[in-house]
Every structure is written in structure tokens, then in C-alpha cells.
């Protein structure tokens, strides 16, 4: 085995190398677009980097990344278990709304109780939203992608509808709910923020996100439940034969995935938004989750890192117009990254380029022997 060959093999096998190459290519394509538009690549990318590397900028990045980490986790979890949770968007929205209802209506409850209560309500709402879809699939065989798309919109309008309730709707003219109670907020105290020089919405939601990451990893890798879910994900017929109830697994997977997305909605609300606006179109946290999960190789820790990366791009991108570059450049870069991740499967074929196996001779012999054995039996 010479060194060059093992290097090629290394590239072809390591998934994170593919992702890194994809990210580089994404920025390269972004640079080409900038050049075509006659803008300075250095100024734009310099701005992107400088805006996320200061302490204040980085605290913004962390705050921005919290919902993306959770939705990314949600989708990654569903990928591992063989379901494509495109309904993450809806689960995020109902989770957010549930947390808002609790945070507004039960505002008098002490902080130490109210915050877990909000989390719980959000996770429950998200889980129910996921399980309904699972139930439609297991009971009536309705395609889950279809019903998830439907439920995303139902969640969206439901949230707008609930936001209009007099008990919740803002007293002012704003097309939004009231602000949630101080007791439900995860913001750091004003003193801490000022003394450290963090962004005004700095909150400890990231700790919850990290805990959720570890938990998701633990469930997938270290528990019987996770093993069963993965088994159903990789081959449901084999799993069923092995005595695993496929239907129950689908419901469980969607429930957990939905709960993660719902928690994301709660964290976004309690840390950053503090109220829910009546929107005219979907916000896209759930759809971003798909991207985050893909960049993170459908791995919980991958989703954590990818979520922060996505948060950095979103926040950095919002500063791009200061140097005259369009904010949408970020979507182009991320889209390109995902595109190259999709085609990075060709890297796994690199090793075949290198070592041409002796054509078919070794294949043929065992086949013949097998044939003989079968004949002799």
C-alpha cells in the first residue's frame, strides 16, 4: 500500500472531508457570483468573517443558531430512523405557539417552574404534530411527505389563528401576540450581558440545545429504542422479521423528532422573539433544519456544528448589505454547499479510479463453485 493510494482512500471514505470540500466550493461559487456582479470578494467575505468573530458577533451567532440546531437535530433524527421529516416546519411552529400560550397565560408562575413548563408544552405539541402524521401513515397508509406538507400549512394558519385570540393577542396595534412573561424568558440578565459585551438577546438556550444534542445521540447510539429505530430505518422488513414493531417505531421516531422541533420553537420564542407575529408566509426554520441535518451528515453532533455554521452564515449574511453585497448571497452559498454534498457521492467512487480490480476473475470462481455446490446438493 503506497502513501498516495491511502490518501485517495482517505478522501473517498471520510464524510466530513466531502463536506469540507463542499463548503469550500460553495464559497468559491459565491465568490464567482460576487465577481460577476462587480463586487469585491475580499470586502464581502471579510465582512462576513469580521462580523462573526468578535465576541458580540459570536454571541449573535450562537443565539441565531439555537433554532437551527434543534430543527437540524429533528431532521437528523428522522433521517437515522428512515423517515424524512419535512414536517419539521409545522412542528416548530406549533411548539413555538404552545410555549407562547403557556408563557403568556401562566405568566405568574415562578421562573423555575414556568420555563420547564413551556419546554414541555412545546415538546408535547411538536410530538403530537409528528405523531398525527405517523398515525395517518400507519393507520391509513397515507404518504407521510404529503401529510407533512399539509400539516405544515395547518400549523402555520393555526398559529396565526391562535395569535388572534383576545387573551393572547397584543393589546397594541401590532399583528402579534403579547410578549411572554418575564418568567418564561431564557435571556441572560441585563448585568451579565452588559458586563460581557454580548448581544442584547444573549440567552442560555444554547445549553438546552447542547443537552438535546447529547440526548439525541444517546438515544440513537446507546439505547435499545435507538437500535430498533435504526433497524427499521435501514431495512423495515428485516426489522419486522426480527420482532420489531415497524408501526410503533415510526410513531416513536416521529414523536421524538417532532418534540425536538417543538423545543426549537420554544427556545427561539423564549430567547429571541418573545412574541409570535402573524406571518404572511412560513418562516422556514424547519426547512433550514433539513439543510443543517444534511451538512451535519445526519449525525446529532454534526447537526450541532452545522447549526452554528448556519447561524453564522445567517447572521453574517445579514451584515453583507453594509458592503453593498446582497444578503441572498448566503442562500446561494448554502444551496451550492448542499448541491455539492449531494454529488459528493462521486468521491466515494474515487478509490475505484485508483485500483482497477482484476476484471471479474475472482468474482466468477466462487459463483461457479456455488453453482456446483447447489448442483451436488
Amino acid at each position: 500500500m503506497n502513501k498516495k493510494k491511502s490518501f485517495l482512500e482517505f478522501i473517498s471514505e471520510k464524510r466530513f472531508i466531502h463536506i469540507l470540500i463542499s463548503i469550500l466550493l460553495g464559497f468559491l461559487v459565491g465568490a464567482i457570483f460576487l465577481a460577476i456582479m462587480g463586487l469585491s470578494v475580499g470586502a464581502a467575505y471579510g465582512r462576513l468573517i469580521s462580523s462573526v468573530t468578535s465576541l458580540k458577533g459570536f454571541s449573535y451567532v450562537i443565539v441565531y443558531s439555537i433554532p437551527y440546531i434543534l430543527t437540524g437535530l429533528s431532521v437528523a433524527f428522522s433521517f437515522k430512523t428512515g423517515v424524512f421529516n419535512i414536517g419539521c416546519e409545522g412542528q416548530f411552529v406549533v411548539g413555538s405557539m404552545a410555549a407562547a400560550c403557556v408563557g403568556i397565560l401562566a405568566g405568574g408562575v415562578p421562573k423555575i417552574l414556568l420555563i420547564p413548563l413551556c419546554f414541555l408544552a412545546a415538546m408535547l405539541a411538536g410530538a403530537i404534530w409528528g405523531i398525527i402524521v405517523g398515525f395517518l401513515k400507519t393507520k391509513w397508509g397515507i404518504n407521510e411527505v404529503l401529510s407533512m406538507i399539509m400539516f405544515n400549512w395547518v400549523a402555520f394558519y393555526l398559529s396565526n389563528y391562535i395569535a388572534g385570540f383576545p387573551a393572547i393577542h397584543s393589546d397594541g396595534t401590532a399583528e402579534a401576540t403579547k410578549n411572554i412573561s418575564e418568567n418564561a424568558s431564557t435571556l441572560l440578565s441585563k448585568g451579565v450581558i452588559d458586563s460581557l459585551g454580548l448581544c442584547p438577546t444573549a440567552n442560555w438556550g444554547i445549553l438546552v440545545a447542547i443537552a438535546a444534542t447529547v440526548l439525541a445521540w444517546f438515544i440513537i447510539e446507546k439505547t435499545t429504542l435507538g437500535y430498533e429505530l435504526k433497524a427499521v430505518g435501514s431495512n423495515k422488513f428485516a426489522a419486522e422479521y426480527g420482532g420489531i414493531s415497524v408501526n410503533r417505531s415510526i410513531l416513536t421516531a416521529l414523536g421524538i423528532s417532532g418534540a425536538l422541533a417543538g423545543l426549537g420553537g420554544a427556545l427561539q420564542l423564549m430567547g429571541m422573539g418573545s412574541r409570535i407575529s402573524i406571518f404572511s408566509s412560513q418562516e422556514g426554520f424547519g426547512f433550514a433544519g433539513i439543510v443543517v441535518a444534511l451538512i451535519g451528515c445526519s449525525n446529532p453532533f454534526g447537526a450541532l456544528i452545522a447549526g452554528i455554521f448556519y447561524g453564522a452564515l445567517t447572521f453574517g449574511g445579514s451584515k453583507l448589505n453594509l458592503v453593498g453585497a446582497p444578503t441572498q448571497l448566503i442562500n446561494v452559498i448554502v444551496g451550492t454547499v448542499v448541491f455539492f454534498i449531494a454529488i459528493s457521492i462521486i468521491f466515494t467512487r474515487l478509490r475505484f479510479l485508483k485500483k482497477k480490480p482484476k476484471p471479474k476473475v475472482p468474482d466468477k470462481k466462487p459463483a461457479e463453485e456455488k453453482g456446483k455446490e447447489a448442483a451436488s446438493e
Partner: protein
Amino acid sequence: MTNFVNTLGIMLYATLIYMTPLLYASLGSCFSEVSGVVNIGIEGMMTAGAFTGTVVAYFTGSPWIGFLCGGLAGAFFGMLHALATVSLGADQTIAGTAINMLGPGIVIMIAKVMFNSTDTIPLDASMKIPRLFRGVFDTSTVFGRFMDNVFANYAATYLVFIAALVVWFVFYKTRFGLRLRACGEHPQACETLGIDVLKMRFACVCISGFLSGLGGAFVTMAISNQFRPISIVGQGFIAIAAVIFGKFRPHGALLGCLLFGFCSGLKVVLGGSSGIDMQLISMIPYVVTVIVLILFVGKSRVPSANGRPFIRAK
């Protein structure tokens, strides 16, 4: 009575106009899915078509050139999707997600550079897709008014029904259609019979992009008169839903689009007068879809090889 007939006419008109973009995209989606390539990038292709259509119409002054270029822009992103999924064997869901980011990302960025705003400049009425039967019907009678309401539609609406018929014919009455369906069911068998599966799929995904682009262009050149970032939002996914609803058949997809169009029409008619909350009315199409699926349609059979990249044996 007169009132009722009027409302019915408006209702039909709204149903037709709202189902048109969905039907274009759904027909496109049929091509891709039936040939065995999952295409969740419809949304991105529609957005590209929506922007390109308005911009070309704005600069050339011709709605039909704009409409066609909208389709071509969609086809370009279809080609990207085909390149990744068919030629390189990439994961179809991931590639589709990339298209959904790239399509809107690129066109909104171009809009920003060209118009210094994410919206394009509104089109004049002459640059929009023409209405065919304007003033043909005598509006003094109740029936005439009804007909005038219904047929106030844009030319591309009638075109999409012809397109649906053509697609149905191609799918079920031509050799190309038979091969196309076979590619989605059992590509290996096709290859054995000398059908170039990769070429077939590549073509189908490009066609799907073209039709989606037309659908997108209809939104910005007929329903509205300018491109905005939220012009398309969600319609691509609804089109996919209509296809799954229609069990991956063009005539089924037409029914699905009709349902969504009808519900949108209901929204228009009920919206002003009924006193029911607008948000609840907006929810109707999605809830109705699920209920209809449970009660009447049931399980949708996905083409066997759908979603699996075909890698040719050496």
C-alpha cells in the same frame, strides 16, 4: 338567484386561476417522479421561472416570450437537478433541497442587483398574459355575466388543460410514455431492452423543470403582476402533494390541483363576507386534502424505482 350565479362564476374563475400554476408544476412533477426521480426542487424551479418570466416580459414587452423564458429558467434548474441525480447518482432529496435554496437565492440576488429591491417592477397590463375572451360575452344577461366571470381567465389557463391532455396522451398512448413509466418501475429491465434509462430520466427531469417554470411564470405574469420573494412560497410543495394525491398520474394530479384551486377559490368568495376567520378558511384546503385521502383515496402507490439512483452496470 342572480347573486348566487354571480358568486358561482367568480368562484369558478378563482378555482381555475389558482389551480393553473399548480397544474403546470404537477404535470412537471409527474414526469420526474414517474420516470423514477424524486423532485422536491419544484419550488425552486417555480421561483426561477416566476422571476425570469416577469423580467423578460418587462424588457421585451412580450408576455409569451417571457412565459417561455420562465419555462426555460425552470428547465435550467431541472437540468442541474438531472445532472446531480441522474448523471452523478446523487441523493435525490438532498439535490432537490439544494435546488430549493439555489433557485430563489440566485433570482432574488439578481433582482436585488438589477432593481435594487427584491421585488421586480410591476408589469403593465399589456405585458401580462392576455385574457382570451374579454368582452366576448354579453354581460347584460345573467348567463352572459356568469360566462364573462368564468372566462375572464388568462390564456395560459386554457393552455394548461391542453397540456394536461397532451401529457396524459404521452404517458399512456405513446411508446415514449410506456418507456418513461417503465424507467420508474424497473430500470434494469428497461436497460436490458435497450432503453437508455439515464437519457430518459435526464429528459424527464428537464421537462419537469420546464413545466414548473411555466407554472411559476403564471403566478407573476397573470395572478399578480410582479415578482416578490413570497410569490411562490409553498406552491411547489402543494404541487407535489397534488401529484401524490393523484397517485402519480397526470389526470389524478389534475383532480388534486382542482381541489386545491377550489379551496383557494372558496377562500376568495368567503373571505370578504362570511365573517369566518380568514386564518381558518385558509386552513381548509390542507385539512380537506387529508380528509379526502383518508376517506376516498387511501394509499398512494409510489413508482417502484422512485428515489433510487440508477447506476449502470459495467
